[in-house]
């Protein structure tokens, strides 16, 4: 397992370099720059701004200088917030997104797997139809509809929680539900499918024939195999969740990474865009590795020597 992990860690470096290079040039091709404002700046001011941020140098020199500081782990100053560095801003925003994302994923796993198992134990029964229809709502209703509906019911009409913010523990409830709903729905469908497949296999029939109760058939014998597809879904899903969902963060006014990311693109904050893209790429690569390791560990048909 150690060499498997080591090999994959070594692969991370060229992946990040390629992502950094492509992003670097792509954002500079996009029309509009960080200093375009609705009131034009004079040519001298623009020249001085470009000079301060090194944008007056030839592009290959800008690229090399950026790569040099990147290797030192320095993502540079933010263009949009000149008195803050990108490292600082990601450092502040990431824990918030991590909290929100982990709670949403935990909720999605619990609800999703539960519904999926309930549905798979009596397929094509009323229980199955109800569970799956409920789950469909999570897929069909987008966050920017679900969020305001939940806010209207629980925050405005019932006044149980705040409409927005990320201060008290009760502030977490609605955003976590809004963000987790879609993932819960997908996990439910995947776990139902996986469980149904495993429950139809021969060794399950053997277990039942031996007299093992249905509860233990599910928990001890089918769960591991049935949730394989859920595990491979979770990897990239977690990366997406913990780097923040822009929509949920704007609706609930949460100071997370998703908002930072999208606003950086909107403001053409070059360094912030690079920083958040690279961070996201790193998260995906690490989480994919974690998922692969878990899959190999729980699937007896696979091994690390592959």
């Amino acid at each position, binding site marked *: 397992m150690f060499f498997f992990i080591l090999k994959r860690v070594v692969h991370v470096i060229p992946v990040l370099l390629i992502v950094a290079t492509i992003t670097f040039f792509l954002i500079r091709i996009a029309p*509009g720059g960080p200093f375009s404002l609705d009131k034009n700046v004079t040519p001298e001011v623009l020249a001085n701004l470009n000079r*301060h941020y090194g944008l007056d140098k030839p592009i290959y020199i800008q690229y090399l200088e950026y790569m040099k500081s990147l290797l030192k782990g320095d993502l540079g100053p933010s263009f949009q917030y000149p008195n803050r560095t990108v490292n600082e801003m990601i450092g*502040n925003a990431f824990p918030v997104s991590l909290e929100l994302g982990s709670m949403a994923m935990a909720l999605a796993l619990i609800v999703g797997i539960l519904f999926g198992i309930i549905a798979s134990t009596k397929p094509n029964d009323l229980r199955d139809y109800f569970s799956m229809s409920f789950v469909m709502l999570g897929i069909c209703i987008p966050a920017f509809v679900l969020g305001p509906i939940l806010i209207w019911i629980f925050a405005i009409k019932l006044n*149980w929680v705040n*409409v927005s913010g990320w201060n008290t523990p*009760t502030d977490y409830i609605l955003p976590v539900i809004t963000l987790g709903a879609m993932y819960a729905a997908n996990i439910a469908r995947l776990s139902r499918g996986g469980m149904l497949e495993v429950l139809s296999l021969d060794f399950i029939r053997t277990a039942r024939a031996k007299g093992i109760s249905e509860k233990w058939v599910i928990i001890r014998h089918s769960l591991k195999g049935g949730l394989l597809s859920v595990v491979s879904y979770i990897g990239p899903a977690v990366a997406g969740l913990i780097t923040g969902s822009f929509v949920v963060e704007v609706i609930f006014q949460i100071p997370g990474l998703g908002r930072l990311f999208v606003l950086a693109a909107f403001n053409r904050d070059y360094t912030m865009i690079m920083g958040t893209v690279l961070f996201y790429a790193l998260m995906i690569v690490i989480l994919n590795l974690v998922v692969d390791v878990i899959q190999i560990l729980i699937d007896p048909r696979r091994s690390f020597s592959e």
Partner: protein
Amino acid sequence: MKKKIWFFLVLFIPVFLVFGCAKKETNVSTGNLKGILYLGNGSEPQNLDPQTVTGVPEQRIISALFEGLVSENPKTLAPEPGVAKSWSISNKGLVYTFFLRKDAKWSDGTPLTAKNFIFSYKRILSPPLASQNAYMLYCIKNAKKFNKGTITDFSKVGVKAVSPYVLQITLNKPIPYFLSLLTHMAWFPVDKNIIEKYGKIAQRGTKWTLPGHLIGNGPFILKQWDINKSIVVVKNKNYWDAKKVKLNKIIFYPFNDNQTEERAFRSGQLHVTYTVPTSKISVYEKNKPGIIKITPYLGTYYLIFNVNRKPYNNLLVRKALSLAINRTSLAKYVVKGGKIPAKSFTPPNTAGYTADTDLDYNVQKAKYLLAEAGYPSGKGLPVIELMYSSSVRNRRIVEAIQEMWAENLNIKTSIVNKEWKVYLDSFRTRDFSIATASWIGDYNDPSTFLDLWMTGAGNNRACWSNKEYDRIMQQASDTSNKKLRNNLFGKAEKILISKMPIIPLYYYTSLALIKPEVKGWYPNILDHHPLKYVYLESK
């Protein structure tokens, strides 16, 4: 199964009890008791350095943390003593001498002297700082030359510390509205000690503006700044007029979405918001008219032509398009919020000036002019590309205009939605035919509107040029006689409207939602509400 149902019910009852029965304290109710104002402030401020930022959200906070030579009367916006307790004007309006109050201090207790202002003006005019507002100080003798790097000796610039508490400013030519210019944040003083502690005088992006570092001279001090979360300011005990300040604390919340902001207001999280979603305007006007405040604002929304592109280089086409727009319906039903249909480019009663022009809605005349231009019944006119930057309001406006032009002139318009930065870049590359635009005045004087359209002016995005217009505007800037100036502005405006490089649509109003307990908040045309005078009075 039954056991399971009871199990879940028993589990959830305490949850319902906890949430249902506990009475929630809102920000507004706590704030009313403790003298804390909660404000929705639009987008997250880029920085709190008065000399390098340009946005309105920034200006609101900076006006609480700093104070200039002159302040504004909260009701009339008339210049009032600020750091300067009095001033004299001499040499036919070229020299202003300010007598600073001796009890004016920085928030750390150190005295604020004339030399601080010299340092501050040197900083904003230093080329490496690349301040986008430096041009506001160009009225000072030699300031423009210093900012452009033509001269490097700041002692040649027309600002002098005659004595520790006397500051003298020499202008290039007399400016009747000079004192109101001084209320803009570009003219605020900044503390030399704290700036040089964290970098050089004109170094951009240093850490001096962070909480715990920032030193200002205004009614409040910066306590906390969490990006995208909140900014907290508390009363400054060292402010010379501290006994007039009634609020103990102000918390500014950034919002990217005005629907989220309105919900926060409705649920008692905010005392004030500066924006109302279009869909909610009529709801508040009908159900809660005391809460929504609609005030004329110094700005104009208009369409701008690329006058070098066919067929918009043809004056008859431009006039026809303008005559076919029903501004009254547009303002009342599409934009809403008390907007006033435009009759000129400069909003009426700008520092006592009202243009004597008119913008008709006359479909017959529009059809006639279009035919005269060679496009009878719209035949032969290429599809009009109407560019706008992404927003709900802009989309509603262009869709309405598209419909008006189709119905009245039988012409096709394709509406082109561009993201904000791409929209701005299209002006730079001249890649547009007609676009939506707005202009908000920098200060309360017609020149801030009419200077825009002089040949070669930095913000003349129509690239329009008219020698007679330029000549009249130059004459106006050379005189300080108010009556003569207004007369000249009137003439210039007539030329602008008759040549129509732009189609003014409506004058802005500022919209706000304000809880009734907020007092000391007065409507004015610049939407400036100095927080020094605001207080909370619970029922």
